[in-house]
């Protein structure tokens, strides 16, 4: 872990006006003959947030809201169309380019969703876990690397002897542990976790969540946690951001957000979760579906589904405003119509 003096108040990661558009235009001739314009998926359309050291910041939202794109932008798998990502105050570009990215990259690692696709099936587990050590040249010599791999495997609850096996010999939960061991091998301080438990069964999900929490406490890790499951997010996070169609509609402390959701979309999401308590509460059925991010609604993208929408919401995109530490982008909240 690098020991440069940080200002504790300074966020570890800060994201400013981050935008990522994907060009999905029809081929040139179609545009010519069918009078189509270029079209873009506005996967991430201008979002800002900060992650403090040691925090778990979660991004939550329905499929296609752009949460995974944010994760990939931060680890440099995509290049931002606009905006900046700063790590310890240093602006970083994509993985394969800028020198700053190269310098900061080792501090971050990623854990992926699909435990079956995230490990190379042709490699032994020991080689998989050792890869970051070899690539970064953290240790020299086969025995040193092997013993470090053994340590890492023990840390995630596997046995050092498992290094000789191939991924297909493990269950989904065990594979996810191997993924975590690989991520830890690079000695990161910041872990980006893209739906790390959504492919797992609930009982295994609990094991992985517990493991992640334990590692965080022990190694002082900072997490960016991507999920569509509000209950999981509630359990793991210190702060939560809610995304809708490429925008961050609300972000706040976990407790505040869940106890007192302000944005109508956050309220709707919370309302849609099946009620395990069976309190018999009357739920308002949620109307409509998420529109296509290629052609999002004008103004506030949520207005077609919003019970509080009025004329202004259809034309003008709301700015994020801060209310008692809660960042909300909503005209109705701003006008005090709801809140």
């Amino acid at each position, binding site marked *: 872990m690098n020991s440069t003096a940080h200002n504790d108040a300074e966020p570890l990661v800060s994201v400013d006006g981050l935008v990522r558009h994907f060009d999905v235009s029809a081929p040139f001739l179609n545009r010519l003959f069918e009078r189509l314009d270029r079209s873009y998926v506005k996967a991430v359309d201008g979002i800002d947030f900060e992650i403090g050291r040691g925090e778990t910041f979660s991004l939550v939202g329905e499929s296609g809201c752009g949460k995974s794109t944010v994760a990939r932008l931060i680890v440099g798998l995509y290049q931002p169309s606009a905006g900046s990502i700063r790590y310890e105050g240093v602006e970083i570009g994509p993985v394969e380019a800028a020198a700053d990215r190269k310098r900061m990259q080792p501090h971050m690692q990623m854990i992926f969703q699909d435990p079956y696709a995230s490990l190379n099936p042709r490699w032994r587990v020991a080689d998989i876990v050792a890869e970051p050590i070899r690539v970064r040249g953290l240790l020299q010599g086969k025995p040193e690397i092997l013993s470090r791999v053994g340590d890492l495997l023990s840390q995630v609850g596997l046995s050092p002897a498992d290094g000789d096996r191939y991924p297909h010999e493990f269950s989904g939960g065990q594979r996810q542990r191997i993924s975590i061991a690989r991520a830890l091998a690079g000695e990161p301080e910041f872990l980006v976790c893209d739906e790390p438990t959504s492919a797992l069964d609930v009982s295994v999900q609990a094991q992985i969540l517990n493991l992640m929490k334990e590692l965080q406490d022990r190694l002082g890790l900072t997490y960016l946690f991507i999920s569509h499951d509000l209950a999981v997010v509630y359990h793991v996070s210190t702060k939560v951001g809610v995304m809708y169609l490429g925008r961050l509609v609300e972000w706040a402390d976990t407790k505040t957000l869940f106890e007192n959701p302000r944005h109508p979309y956050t309220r709707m999401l919370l309302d849609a979760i*099946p009620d395990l308590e069976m309190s018999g509460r009357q739920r308002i059925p949620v109307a409509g579906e998420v529109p296509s991010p290629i052609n999002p609604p004008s103004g506030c993208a949520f207005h077609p589904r919003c019970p509080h929408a009025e004329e202004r919401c259809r034309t003008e995109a709301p700015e994020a405003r801060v209310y008692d530490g809660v960042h909300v982008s909503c005209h109705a909240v701003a006008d005090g119509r709801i809140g």
Partner: protein
Amino acid sequence: MQGDSQALLSVRNLRIEFPTRRGTLVAVDDISFDISPGEILGVVGESGAGKSLTGAAIIGLLEPPGRIAQGEIILEGERIDNLPYEAIRRIRGRRIGAIFQDPLTSLNPLYSVSRQLTETIQTHLPMNDKQARDRALELLDEVGIPGAEERIDHYPHQFSGGMRQRVVIALALCAEPRLIIADEPTTALDVSIQAQIISLLKRLCKDHGTAVMLVTHDMGVIAEAADRVAVMYSGRIAEIGPVQEVVRAAKHPYTHGLMGSIPHIGHHVDQLTQIEGSMPRLQEIPPGCPFNPRCEDVTDRCRVERPNLQPAEHSEVACHLFDGQTAEVQVNE
């Protein structure tokens, strides 16, 4: 537990096997349950517990080499697991409908929705083209597709995910079956759409008196929709009973652990309750109670003797802790 006479569907000692080169795998092992008319039975379990196979066996769509090795499936008093192909085909769609997980792949991309609907209607009901189309329109209307008149001639790719699942439900309802097997009907959908589809299913069942076997891994969906729930583990039923009782006061140590491992909004805990290990692969199911290696209350007896379902309060539980008298249980606790 209902008597056979009232049950719409009754599964008796069902056993499903997969012959492989390393021996025969028992994917579903001696399970029995009933579904009453109009009832929603949730079947919950982790992947590989055998819940989907049970559904497939009931409609006679087990994929070879899987086969029913033992047991009976009785629909309205008639045994259907040993029927010839043509007879079971007539039951499918007519008396038992089905809904699958992924609405994207469930519909034939080359045919319009109207063609797929009318084809199914005319297979089972004596209707001419006009009548079939009218019925198709009614169905689309009923499952909440706005502008059915216009959208009926569209192709599946022109519908969104949630709308497609509504079309799939309409297809399952074509001939007003008494029972619908819904295999993970909401898993591929977003939370907000999930809620819509569940409430639609519930409404339709209430209106038509259709029973549903709702197969899912999502306890939340079960809690929301089901009347009774069967919890499956390693091809067996661990616990079956009214949903309130199973969710709030789980008896089987597995169900108990499972409920504890689900995070809840509003109850902050530092660590989730966790069941060590994971469900054994089919070829590694231990003798005795399949849950014994992960169970905290394991006894020597659990390692040799398989527990059978026995009544406990309003539920039935397959656990030696609940053997015989209820009194003993209380002593143990």
